[in-house]
C-alpha cells in the first residue's frame, strides 16, 4: 500500500481520525456494556452499590471526543489535501512546461473535452490521500486496536473474524478492481465519442450533404451509450460489493457473542463480550466504504500513469556558442522527419529579416519549430544555436495559433516593462484603441471576447516585448487583412532592427517586406 501522507497536517489529521474512530467504536461498545451491566445489577441487590458515575462519564466523554474529533479530522484532512493539491499542481505545471510532449504536437488541452478529462486525472491524483490512504490508515489502526482487545476478551472469535476480514478486503478489492476497469473503459469510450463528435461537427456540412450525417452520429452516440453503460455497471459493482461488506460488522459482533458463549461465559462473564461485540458492530461502518477507497486508489493510479506521459525532458545543454552563426541551414521535413525538399541556406543577421515563403505542407512550420528548439534538430550537424535547450532560451517563437490567457492585458504581454513602453508596443500592433476600449492594461480579457486577428496582433506585441536575440514568427499575417499585416509587420521589423528575425508565410505581400526571401515547395 502506497501511503502518501507526508506533511505534518496529515499526521494531525491521522491523530484526530484515529481518536474519532476509537471513540466512535468504543462509544457504542461502552454504552452497550453499561446497559448490560446495569441490567444485570438491577436484577439483584447490587443495583444500590453499582457505581454508574464512571461509565456514564466515559460515555459522555466518548461522545464529545467523537464529535470534536470528527470535525478536527475533517478540517485537518481537507487542509492537508489542499496543500497536496497546490503542491502537485504547481509541480505538474512545471513538469509539463519542461516536457517535449508539450512542444511537439498540436495542443490537445486547448479543447474543452480533453482539458476536462485531464483535470479529472489531476484531481484523482490530488485527492488520493484524502480518499484512500487517510481513511484506510485510520480504519486499519482502529481495527488493530479492536483485534487486540478481542484477543484478550474472546480470542476464539478471531478465528471467525480473521477469515471474515480477509473476505471483506477481498470483496472490496475485487469490486474496486472491476469498477476501475469499467470506469477506465467508460473514460476511453467517452474520449473517443467526444473526439469523433468534434470531428463530425466540424465536417457536418459534408456529412449532411452526402446524407451520411445520421449514420455517423448514430455510431458516435452508440459509443457514448456503451460508455454510460460501463459507468453505471462500475457504480453497480461498487454498491453491490459494499452491500456484501455491510455484513462484516454484524457477523463479527455475532461471532464475538457466540464465541464467548461457546467458551462458557455466562451472566457477568458476558459483559466484556457485549462491549467487544458492539464495538465490532460499530467498526463495520468504518469498513463499509473500503471498496470506494480502493477504487479511488486505482483511479489515482490510472490517472498518474496517464499524467506520467508529461515527463520532464532534460536536454543536453552544451556550452552556449560564442557567436550565433551568420549563415543558417534549414532542413525541410514533414512532422515525421521525412525530407520534403532541399535544405534552405541563407544569412540570418540583425536588421535583415528573412522570409521563408511557401504553401502549406512544404515543411516551413516544422523547420521553424526545429530552429526554436521545439522539435529535435534534424538538420546537418549540431543545432545552430548550440542545442535545443539553448535555442529555446535564445529565441522567441511566435506561434501562429497563440491564445489569450484569461487575465489582464498586462498579464497577457508577459513583460515587466513600464506602462508607456507597453502602450507604444500596443500602438505598433494597432491594439492601443482596442485595449483602451477594453479598459486599459489592467482590464481582464479572454479568448472569447477577442477575435483571432486581435489575438494574432497581441502575439506580435509579445514578440516585440521579448528580449530574445532571435525572433521566429510563424505566419505573422494570419487572420489579418493583407494591408494591415504588411503595415504592422513593417513597423515590427523596424522595432526589431537589432535582432535576428525569421518568419514563415504563404503570403507574397508579406514575404516582399523581408530582406531575404527563401522559397520552399
Amino acid at each position: 500500500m502506497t501511503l502518501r501522507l507526508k506533511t505534518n497536517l496529515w499526521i494531525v489529521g491521522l491523530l484526530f481520525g484515529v481518536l474519532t474512530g476509537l471513540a466512535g467504536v468504543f462509544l457504542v461498545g461502552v454504552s452497550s456494556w453499561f446497559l448490560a451491566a446495569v441490567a444485570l445489577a438491577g436484577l439483584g441487590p447490587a443495583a444500590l452499590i453499582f457505581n454508574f458515575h464512571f461509565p456514564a462519564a466515559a460515555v459522555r466523554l466518548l461522545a464529545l471526543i467523537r464529535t470534536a474529533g470528527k470535525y478536527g479530522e475533517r478540517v485537518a484532512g481537507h487542509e492537508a489535501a489542499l496543500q497536496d493539491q497546490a503542491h502537485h499542481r504547481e509541480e505538474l505545471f512545471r513538469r509539463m512546461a519542461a516536457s517535449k510532449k508539450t512542444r511537439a504536437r498540436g495542443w490537445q488541452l486547448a479543447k474543452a473535452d480533453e482539458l476536462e478529462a485531464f483535470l479529472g486525472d489531476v484531481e484523482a491524483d490530488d485527492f488520493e490521500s484524502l480518499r484512500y490512504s487517510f481513511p484506510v490508515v485510520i480504519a486499519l489502526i482502529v481495527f488493530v486496536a479492536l483485534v487486540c482487545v478481542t484477543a484478550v476478551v474472546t480470542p476464539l472469535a478471531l478465528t471467525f473474524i480473521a477469515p471474515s476480514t480477509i473476505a471483506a478486503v477481498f470483496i472490496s478489492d475485487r469490486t474496486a478492481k472491476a469498477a476501475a476497469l469499467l470506469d477506465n473503459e467508460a473514460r476511453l469510450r467517452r474520449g473517443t465519442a467526444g473526439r469523433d463528435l468534434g470531428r463530425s461537427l466540424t465536417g457536418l456540412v459534408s456529412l449532411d450533404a452526402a446524407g451520411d450525417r445520421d449514420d455517423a452520429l448514430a455510431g458516435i452516440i452508440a459509443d457514448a451509450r456503451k460508455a454510460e453503460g460501463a459507468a453505471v455497471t462500475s457504480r453497480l459493482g461498487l454498491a453491490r460489493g459494499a452491500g456484501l461488506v455491510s455484513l462484516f460488522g454484524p457477523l463479527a459482533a455475532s461471532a464475538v457473542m457466540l464465541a464467548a458463549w461457546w467458551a462458557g461465559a455466562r451472566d457477568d462473564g458476558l459483559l466484556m463480550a457485549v462491549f467487544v461485540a458492539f464495538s465490532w458492530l460499530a467498526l463495520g461502518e468504518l469498513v463499509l466504504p473500503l471498496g470506494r477507497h480502493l477504487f479511488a486508489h486505482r483511479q489515482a493510479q490510472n490517472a498518474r500513469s496517464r499524467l506520467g506521459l508529461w515527463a520532464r525532458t532534460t536536454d543536453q545543454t552544451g556550452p552556449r556558442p560564442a557567436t550565433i552563426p551568420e549563415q543558417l541551414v534549414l532542413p525541410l521535413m514533414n512532422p515525421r522527419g521525412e525530407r520534403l525538399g532541399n535544405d534552405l541556406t541563407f544569412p540570418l543577421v540583425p536588421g535583415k529579416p528573412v522570409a521563408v515563403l511557401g504553401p502549406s505542407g512544404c515543411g516551413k512550420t516544422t523547420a521553424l519549430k526545429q530552429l526554436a528548439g521545439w522539435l529535435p534538430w534534424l538538420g546537418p550537424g549540431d543545432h545552430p544555436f548550440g542545442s535545443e535547450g539553448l535555442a529555446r532560451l535564445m529565441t522567441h517563437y511566435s506561434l501562429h495559433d497563440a491564445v489569450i490567457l484569461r487575465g489582464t492585458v498586462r498579464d497577457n504581454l508577459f513583460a515587466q516593462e513600464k506602462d508607456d513602453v507597453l502602450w507604444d508596443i500596443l500602438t505598433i500592433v494597432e491594439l492601443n484603441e482596442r485595449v483602451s476600449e477594453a479598459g486599459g492594461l489592467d482590464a481582464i480579457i479572454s479568448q472569447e471576447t477577442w477575435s483571432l486577428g486581435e489575438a494574432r496582433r497581441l502575439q506580435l506585441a509579445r514578440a516585440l516585448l521579448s528580449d530574445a536575440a532571435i525572433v521566429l514568427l510563424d505566419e505573422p499575417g494570419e487572420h489579418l487583412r493583407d494591408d494591415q499585416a504588411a503595415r504592422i509587420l513593417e513597423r515590427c521589423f523596424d522595432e526589431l532592427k537589432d535582432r535576428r528575425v525569421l518568419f514563415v508565410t504563404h503570403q507574397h505581400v508579406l514575404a516582399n517586406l523581408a530582406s531575404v526571401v527563401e522559397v520552399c515547395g
Partner: protein
Amino acid sequence: MVSAPQALLGDAVARDLSVITLVQSASLILRLAALLGFAHTVGSLVIVGHLPWTILIGSGVLMGLPVAASTASEGLVAAAETKAANIVLDWFLRFAAQAPVAEVQAMDSGDLANRLSRQPGAAARAMVSVKIGKWMSPIGACAALGLMAVLSWQAAIILLLTMPIMVMFFVLIGRLTKAKALAQEATLQELSGAFAEKVRCLPTIMACGASNAQATDLGRLLNDYRKWSSELLRVAFLNSAVLDFFSSLSIAMLAIFLGLGHLGLVSFPGLSGLSLSASLGVLVLAPEVFQPFRRFSELYHQAAEGDEALRSLEPFADSTIKEDTRLPLGRLGTRGVVLANQAVIDDCDLPATGLVAVTGPSGSGKTMLLKTLAGVQAPLKGQVFRANRHAAWVDIDAWLPTCTNDPDQRTLFQKLRLTDDPRFQECDDLSSAAHGDVSGGQRVRLILAHALMRDETTLFADEPTAKLDHKSAEAVRDTLVEAASKRLVIVATHDPVLARRAHLCLRLQVREGVPA
C-alpha cells in the same frame, strides 16, 4: 420550477423510482430488524442465559435479507439510470443528427463533446440516485423512529424532539456557509480555474518564455485558493459536526437514561423497566435516526451538478428538426430562390455531368448557394430541385473517412500529388496522419480523393484550390475536370483558372445574382 428535461426524464423513470423506493424501504426495514434481532440475541444471552436455535437461525437469515434486497435495488437503480442516460443521449443524437446544420455548428464542438461525456450520467444520477436518496432520508429516519417507538415510544419522542433543534442549527450554519461562499464566490471561481487556464495556454506561455514566472504565479494562486477554501470548509464542516453531535449525544443520553432505569434509580416512563433486549434495541436504533441526514448532505454536490446538467439540456430536449424541402426532380435546379443572405439566384437547371463554377466576391453567397443546392441549408424563398443521386462535399473542414488500400485511390493520390510527401505513400501511415499533422492543402486533397471514390455522386467543392501551391492547384483542377466527365461537379471558387475551365459559370454579386 421544473425544466422540460426534468419533466421528460421524471415521467420516464417515475415507475422505476416507485419500485426502487419500495425495495430500498424494505431493505432498510430489514436491516433495522436485523439490528434489533442482534440486540435481542445479546439481551437473551446475558439476561435469560440461553439462546434458542430458532432465534439464532432467524438472526442469521435477517442479516442476509437486507443484503439481498439492497443488491436487487442497486440493480434496479442501474437499470433506471441507464434508461435515463439513454434518453439524454437520444436528445444529443437528435440535435446533432437532425437539427439545422447552422444551429449545430453555432455551438463550440469541444464544449459539446465535453457535455456529451458528462451530462447523460450527471442527469441520470440526478433523476434516479439523488432523487431516491432524497426520498429515503425521511423514510429512513421515520423507519428508525417507528421501530424505536415499538420498543419505547418515549425514547422515540425524545429523539423526535431533538430534530427541530438540529434543523435549526442546520439552517443557521447553512446560512453562514452560503454567506461566506457568496462573498468569496468570484475569487474562489477564478482561483480554482487558474490551473486549467494556464494549462490551456501552456504552449503560448512557453513560446513567450514565461513558463517559470507563470508557474510561480500559479503556486501563489493555488496557495490563495487553499486558504480561501479551507476557511470556507471550516464553516461548512460545522454542519456535519452538528449531525455528529446529535447522533453521539443521543447514544450517550439514551444509554445513561436507560441505564439508570435498569438500576431502578430513576423512573422515567418508557425508559425504565425495559428488558435489556429492548434497551439495546433502542441504543442501536438511535444513530440510525440520524444516519439518513448524513446521506442527504452527501448528495448535495451531486444534486447541484445534476441540476446544472438538466438545466443546460433544455435546448436539446426540444431541438428543431431540419427538413429537406428540395423537390426530387432528378436534376439539380432552382426556381425563384433567395438565399439566406438575401442574394437572389436566377432560375437555373444544371446538367447531369460537367463542371459548374460558382464565382463572385466574398460574401456574395457562393458557399451558401452550394449548401442550398446540397440541401444542407434551406433557402429563404423559392424552390430547389434535387438529383436522385448521392452527393459528396469537399472543403477544408469536411469529414475525412479512414483510408482504404484501394489501387484506384492510390492513383488518385498520385494524380493529386499527395505522394510528394512520403507519408502518403503507404495507406497505414495515412490513417494516423489523416487527422493530425497534415497541412490544410493536403487535407483538401485527401478529402477530394475520398470524395471521388464514391460512385455516381454529385460533387460539391468549396474553394478546392485555395491554400494550394501552383502545381497542386493545377493537379486539383485537372482532377476536377476529369471527374466532371462522369458526374456533376459544382465548385465555389475565387480561382479564375478553375472558373475558365468550367462548362458553366454562375456569377454571383453581393445582394444580386446574375448568372452568366
